[in-house]
């Protein structure tokens, strides 16, 4: 109980710090989702493409979603430019948008599909799977 009370007090204090922070974007709630990787499975089977896509049945594509708010924490993988753009956005919110939450690393997938009745292709598609997200 003591530990919970301490944690609550600390949380309130940090929340207060946040509200008092002159650089915080007033249009954004403190608890809004931050930029991070989200789960997205693309199913070729559900799309009924298995007639010509032999493998895989689908793949974990993922996507990046969330907001790039000040301060840009380290886990957001922000570029220097994104940090500067965030500051400029705070000065002129109507003129300069916030940085975008986008993939920072992508990896390929291989797809095996029929070209016709008897010939097949195994093709590597680059940049198809999101490995990490960040603010750009």
């Amino acid at each position, binding site marked *: 109980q003591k530990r919970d009370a301490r944690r609550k007090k600390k949380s309130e204090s940090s929340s207060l710090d946040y509200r008092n922070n002159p650089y915080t974007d007033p249009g*954004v709630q403190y608890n809004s989702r931050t930029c991070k990787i989200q789960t997205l499975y693309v199913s070729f089977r559900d*799309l009924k493409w298995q007639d010509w896509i032999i493998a895989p049945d689908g793949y974990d594509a993922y996507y990046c979603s969330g907001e790039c708010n000040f301060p840009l924490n380290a886990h957001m993988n922000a570029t220097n430019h994104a940090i500067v753009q965030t500051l400029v956005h705070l000065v002129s919110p109507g003129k300069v948008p916030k940085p975008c939450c986008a993939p920072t690393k992508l990896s390929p997938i291989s797809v095996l599909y*029929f070209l*016709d009745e*008897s*010939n097949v*292709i*195994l093709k*590597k598609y680059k940049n198809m799977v999101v490995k990490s997200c960040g603010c750009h």
Partner: protein
Amino acid sequence: STAAAERMSGLYVDNGFDQTIVHRVISQREKREVEHEILNLLGLPDRPKNTAARPPQVKRSAPKFLLDIYKNALGEDEDEKPIGEQQRRAGEFDLTGQDFRAIDQSDVIMTFAARNHHVPGVRHERGKRLWFDVSEVPPGEHIISAELRLYRSMDVKNWRKNGSYMITAYRVLKTENGTRELQYVDAVNTTAGKEGWLTLNVSEALDHWVNNPDGNKGLYLSVHPADRSVHEVRPEDVGIVGFRGNPDKQPFMVGYFKSSGIRESKVR
């Protein structure tokens, strides 16, 4: 895809806080259109040819070969780093170190089933002619290598199942007045008791056919006893499975390609 982005713009809107929210649910027709755009982006805009009534099966040798590569020779996490040597398996198709190197370098691996394509004026002796439709090779792809794969079966009923044989592939050049000009491509030796896949390097032939489609008159397969004690023999007499043999043992060609990096989405 620009078209897809334009189409999507009517379905999602910016809520003013740099968030994209759903504006309305798309109709079935629009859903099909978006699906088609994704397929177009993948280079698969349409269902494969001649498969409307009966979906293609993976029991033929060529699809089985690429499925074998997909299962055994690619990294599980699909990362840039290739799978470790010790984890690799030769599989049913006896993949070699050279095959694994070609697989690692390739962006596209394509198979071509052998066909009985009639070319006027070509007379066959005891050898066998194999023809491959290479018209679907994407333009701008760099050929790393190509190999012809033949299956030698032990299921031979006559005396020729014993001894050593030299199997030679030639590219058919001209067919004027019924005479044939052949250019040596590659050869492989096979001995009695050896059952399995034989490979011949046909990189030069594939490169020629892709760049000169009219010059594609196929390969001529010639089989001789290694000691040349008798004349040319028929490939099936030494157990070479032809394009009328078991579907999973039929001859095929495989091409390894490096992508040019140009996206080849087709205009619909």
